[in-house]
């Protein structure tokens, strides 16, 4: 399968604090991968390294996607609060989505800001990959269902997804592979290695516990 994003031997340190050690990872065309790990494990750092926003201290990252075909949403706090919703939607979706809400983004509730960021990014056609950091955070049940269905639909259209989340029950069943990040190291397991049938949140938790005991 053609790979969209690759990381080879990636390490990242801030001063003496090592965040990632020797991470090898690839996101293939059309697959959905869940990124799981405790707070501070380096999930956000890994996503930003893959996106080229943060430089690895060691190793290399390659993107085989056409320029502009990889999108990212890092959470509601990464939206500029003073920009009107309507302007933001038009700007980031490159005119592929529209909205009449003239309020500044700061006037929206947290869940609405999260939904705004996600819907703007996922509205774009011709996406090769989308990298989402805690996308279910702050969403109500309808929003969470919309996100899961949208990710499935984008997958059917050939879009790859790398989704970092603590909400294991939302991730479960959505992904072909799961990347567990603990103590800066990554272990990737296929859904078939985690459970015989459909993967549940409990299966992911047990798999993560096993990996932490014997990496």
């Amino acid at each position, binding site marked *: 399968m053609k790979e969209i994003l690759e990381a080879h031997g990636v390490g990242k340190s*801030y001063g003496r604090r090592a*965040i990632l050690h020797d991470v090898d990872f690839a996101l293939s065309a059309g697959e959905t991968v869940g990124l799981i790990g405790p*707070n*501070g*494990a*380096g*999930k*956000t*750092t890994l996503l*930003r390294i893959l*996106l*080229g*926003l*943060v*430089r690895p201290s060691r190793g290399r990252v390659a*993107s085989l*996607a*056409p*320029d*502009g*075909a*990889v*999108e*990212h949403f*890092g*959470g509601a*706090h*990464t*939206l*500029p609060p003073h*920009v009107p919703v309507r*302007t*933001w939607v038009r*700007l*980031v979706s*490159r*005119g592929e989505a529209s909205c009449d809400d003239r309020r500044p983004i700061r006037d929206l509730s947290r869940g609405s800001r999260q939904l705004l960021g996600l819907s703007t990014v996922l509205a774009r056609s011709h996406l090769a990959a989308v990298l989402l950091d805690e996308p279910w955070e702050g969403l109500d049940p309808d929003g969470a269902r919309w996100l899961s269905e949208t990710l499935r639909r984008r997958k059917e259209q050939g879009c790859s997804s790398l989704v970092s989340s603590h909400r294991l029950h939302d991730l479960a069943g959505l992904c072909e592979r799961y990347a567990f990040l603990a103590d800066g190291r990554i272990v990737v397991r296929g859904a078939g290695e985690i459970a015989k049938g459909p993967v549940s949140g409990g299966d992911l938790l047990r798999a993560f516990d096993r990996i932490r005991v014997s990496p």
Partner: protein
Amino acid sequence: MRGLSPIRYFAVVSPPAAPLVAVLVILAAGAAVLEIIDRGSSDWVLASIGLLQLFACSTGFARHATRGYYDPLLLLAASHRRRVALAHFAVSSAPGIGAWIAAGAAQAIAARSPTVPAFRPAGWAGLLLVSAIPWAAGIRVPRFVAGALWLTLTASLAVSGKLLVPLSLLHSRPSWAVEHPFRSLAVGLAFPVVLPSLDWPPAVLLGFSLVGIAALAVGIEMVAAAEFALAEEDG
């Protein structure tokens, strides 16, 4: 970055501070009124625009980049980062440049000559310095800090007397700049708002221009090489 104009993006996400833009508009309009009333009486307006430009260009690129506000522009756009940086500089400096040109146009119309201080080489060099240096110096620091630091340095030099003596020499004896090109360069860099109102030898003017271009180039490379970890990133 396909289909995403960096200039439009920065104009929306990090627009120049509204109070600064308002004062620059008032200054440009004031220059026109002064020139109508008394030709040649608006030279101080250029110095005021230059002072404001020190702050207008101290926008602090990292301030918004580390909050993730620029993520859509910076995604995998390593090859486009220089264009992104240049667009940020253009948006930051546009109000001051606009006010400068408007004030210069008022002077030129009143004088019926294009060789007014704003449009002479010294004027353009001064505008480049007050735009490029604070922008480049401010990439990693909070908004307005680079301009405030430069002004503090200038005030310190003025209070210590190291600036006023050479400035008076430059005013009273233009040949002093030819005799002391490096000191002239240092005086101009310490207090660039005086550039349009003085006569400078071509070599010193070239020095000012090179410093301005070098500052801009350094700033662009800083943005191109920078990494933007989120400020509140928890790993």
